[in-house]
């Protein structure tokens, strides 16, 4: 596996349903052994993209290539890809072991070898003792692991996971996340994991592709996507950043309103004078200071919600600036300068915590 080798290549892949464009000319590639999370809200086309790669749908335009080979006319059963379905899709009339062995049986793997591989796969997901149970006789978490084992036992080059954790309890979800990452490292199989949960995507993936309305808004490492969002949508969807509209007022300065400007180092010279620009700031980068006067953006606390280790404030702008959505979210560690609902505050944001998103309003947040 040479570095830079491409396992999966999407080239202008498009899928329409009537007038709706579910996948809109996506081009991307995946390396062997990589863990890619496809992150996006429901209806953004991520499941359609998975179905195109698995072969359940045929693209209206563009090409899906696996190992460099055009997959357009290759049916699902002949693709070196396996799917972990959102509802697991375990065969109800087959035992756990028979479910896991189904793919090997279909491919004509000799019985003895198949039995051995099924045992190995079940051991890998710690289900040896459930081998002879039926799917309905085991728990949801166990069913999920059966689905994983059933796909992995075929040793595909690429595993597609469609919201694999969405049907699990929150505490179980963390456990299965660890399990997924462990199994992925052990097997070296490339994972393409679809999710709408940004925490899941950021903590699991080598790279995250943020998808919206059938397109990739950004693709990069979790840190890149979080720290340097390429669009307003990415900024607000990943990490729930606050978005403030402004204009470049000179080198290093952004004007947010008639009398309010903030210093943003590294902004560079404006492309044109008064270029519209969006500033994003993470809720945890906002600090609150008391008082009607002084430095910082003036605001009023509309709601303070205690979250245990931190307090989430919803703050309304009182004068001189605007935030997209009307309310700015701030996460402050509990016990740090308690403020109450109705208090007027000053928002202190370190100049280095501003994230610049060029292009102003053209990428309106969803």
């Amino acid at each position: 596996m040479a570095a830079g080798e491409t396992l999966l290549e999407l080239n202008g892949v498009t899928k329409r349903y009537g007038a709706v464009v579910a996948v809109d000319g996506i081009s991307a590639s995946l390396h062997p052994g990589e863990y890619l999370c496809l992150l996006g809200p429901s209806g953004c086309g991520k499941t359609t993209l998975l179905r195109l790669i698995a072969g359940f749908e045929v693209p209206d335009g563009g090409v899906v290539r696996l190992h460099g080979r055009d997959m357009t006319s290759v049916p699902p059963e002949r693709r070196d890809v396996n799917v972990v379905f959102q509802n697991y899709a375990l065969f109800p009339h087959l035992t756990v072991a028979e479910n896991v062995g189904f793919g090997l049986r279909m491919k004509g793997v000799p019985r003895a070898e198949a039995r051995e591989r099924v045992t190995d796969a079940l051991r890998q997901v710690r289900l040896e003792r459930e081998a002879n149970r039926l799917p309905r006789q085991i728990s949801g978490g166990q069913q999920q692991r059966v689905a994983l084992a059933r796909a992995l036992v075929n040793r595909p080059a690429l595993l597609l996971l469609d919201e694999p954790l969405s049907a699990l309890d929150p505490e179980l979800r963390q456990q299965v996340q660890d399990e997924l990452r462990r199994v992925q490292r052990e097997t070296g199989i490339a994972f393409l994991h679809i999710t709408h949960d940004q925490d899941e995507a950021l903590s699991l993936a080598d790279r995250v592709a943020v998808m919206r309305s059938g397109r990739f808004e950004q693709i990069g490492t979790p840190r890149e996507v979080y720290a340097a969002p390429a669009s307003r949508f990415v900024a607000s969807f990943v990490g729930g950043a606050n978005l403030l509209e402004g204009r470049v007022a000179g080198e290093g300065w952004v004007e947010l309103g008639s009398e309010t400007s903030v210093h943003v180092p590294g902004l560079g010279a404006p492309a044109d004078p008064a270029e519209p620009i969006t500033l994003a700031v993470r809720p945890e980068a906002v600090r609150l200071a008391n008082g009607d006067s002084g430095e910082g953006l003036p605001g009023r606390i509309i709601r303070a919600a205690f979250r245990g280790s931190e307090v989430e404030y919803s703050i309304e702008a009182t004068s001189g600036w605007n935030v997209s959505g009307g309310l700015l979210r701030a996460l402050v560690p509990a016990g740090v300068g308690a403020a109450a609902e109705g208090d007027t505050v000053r928002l202190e944001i370190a100049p280095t915590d501003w994230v610049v998103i060029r292009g102003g309003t053209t990428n309106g947040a969803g």
Partner: protein
Amino acid sequence: MNSSDERRVKAPPAALSGGVYVTPAVLYLVLLFALPLAIVAGYSFADGDLGGGLTLENYARAFDPLYVGVLLRSAWLALATTLLALLISYPCVLALRTLSPTRRILTLALLVVPSWLNLLVKNYAWIILLRREGVLNSLLQGMGLTDTPLPLLFNEGAVLVGLVHTYLPFMILPLYAAVDRMDWSLVEAARDLGAGRWRTFRHVLLPQTRVGVLVGSALVFIPTLGAFVTPDLLGGPTSLMIANVIESQVLQARDWPMAAALSMLLVALVLLATGLLHRVTRPYPAAAE
């Protein structure tokens, strides 16, 4: 509010309420089904002149090769009808699934509504189509495919066609229900795991719709076994079914005990089929622990 307490106050004791609700059904079945059946069973052991003596003579006669042959032919025709209906219905039901919901309901209605047509009318229609100077023969001759009219009517083939036509909806409906209820991601899972279309059908679709297949088969097989009108109208002397023989015993030979014995054999055959069905319709075989 405790709803279970409330229910306990309002509802009469389960045993009593159950008894009340099923009374009409029990009365109906006892008077119009169990009693007549008991009378027929009694007749089947009666002397030829209904003089009062009991005998197994009628059953001995019923096992004459002539009657056994008719019983076997009935079973064979019922089985063939069931299999043909299944072969026609399955692709049809799978095709239905690909239609939009509105078209699906419409097509289903088009398949089922004609079955409300009177059985006689349907069979006469087949006579018009299949007889020597019938539509089909005229067509074949007109196209020059045959010089002499083909013997399409008054044989087993005609009976089979008539029976399949009559009972097809009884196969389509349970099969449609089973396919419609099925989790379709299982089919995708099978494809994903390397099964082609045929093996997906054999290993996933068929086991998953097994109950629909069996219920449909029972709904076709059991009434076909006792079919009377269709073999009477479309069949010839060599394609009689057991119901036709029973009828002639009653109306022509006036041998009621013999007719009763043959009827009891038919009932036994139906019970056997029902018993077999009951054995195989348990949803899934229990898993070995």
